[in-house]
């Protein structure tokens, strides 16, 4: 079973889309903050496109369409971090 996130637009706290980021480090959890297990999937070479959208495949996730998990992102080059509650495709 797997899950995906398609074109999740990332913004900074000034509400500016984070376009063309690369080398993003990420971890996906099938659960909620405060009750997380180890991430089901993780990586360190993700990118956002020119619109600031991120697309991820989580091959080990057991969530089904519409279910919510937690994504943690880190951009080492810009020292940016973020966390998101997202519904999978």
């Amino acid at each position, binding site marked *: 079973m797997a899950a995906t996130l398609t074109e999740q637009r990332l913004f900074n706290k*000034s509400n500016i889309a984070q376009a063309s980021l690369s080398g993003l480090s*990420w*971890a996906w959890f099938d659960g*909620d*903050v405060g*009750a*997380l297990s*180890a*991430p089901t999937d993780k990586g360190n070479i993700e990118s956002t496109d020119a619109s600031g959208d991120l697309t991820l495949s989580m091959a080990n996730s057991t969530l089904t369409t519409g279910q919510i998990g937690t994504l943690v992102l880190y951009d080492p080059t810009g020292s940016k*971090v973020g966390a998101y509650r997202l519904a999978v495709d």
Partner: protein
Amino acid sequence: MAIAYRNATTAVDDDATLNSKTLTINVPSGVVEDDVMLAFVASETTGGITMPENGSWTTITADSWLGGDDTSYVIQYKVAGPSEPASYDWGAVTATELHGGIVAFSGVDTTTPLDQTSAFSKLLNTTDPDSPTITTQTAGAEIVALLMTTRTLASVTPPTGYTKVMDAPNGNTSRRTAVAHLVKATAGATGTINWPTSLASFADPIAGTIALKPSGASGASITDLGLVNLSSTAQASLSGLKWSWFDQSDPNNFTAPTDQGLVESTDGSGNISISMPNSTLTTGQTGFLVLRDPANNYIGGYRVAVD
């Protein structure tokens, strides 16, 4: 290392059938070197209780008194060595109805097993005993609550949230010694610990509280991390915050969180302080905190150096 309960044994020297004035308590099954054993032994008479001759037990407290419910009791601890005997003997010259047990824990600091000065109360004429409050210094301390009743009870009900691991009656079941425990994740006051045991009549129970200190690194903590919203406004007096802490600073290296919680709060300045007793990071090392405020639909990630 987190403290964990290992095992317990109880024993009784029944005057009617044994009357040996010696209480032989087996070392709990599974005890290994560096476990810490607590012994709780009581009798229905004055004159004190003698210590085992075949081991270096350290007395935490001991007392005896005459009048009302004559009593002697002792509470001791010992760090298990590489080769423990099968049992230890406690006794007394004028002992009557000796009873008690040994409770063992792993993960306790073997140099300084007690996190804080223990507290004991001799409660006179009460039917509703409380173990006294103590204030722990170390996150992850093991709170051990003890009760000795001087009235007949079928069993002892442990305090709310505590796990009972010892409940030893004397030979005629007129008294019981009980031990219950829980891990206190954050340092601070325990508050009084109520034993919901309504004694049938006025009694003179003994109630005590011991805090065992975890071994090795005492975990890590973050102090006064300021939370602001997108407008850089401090998020003061938030409550019910959910959080997860990772000892890794890069999500690509994440394993399971070492510590998590569901009820943190920010103070009046928007600062949050968190203790992570299972973290192995040392001062200045960076980990990752994920925080969510369900009430305000906020979620955030932070790379933070621990205190």
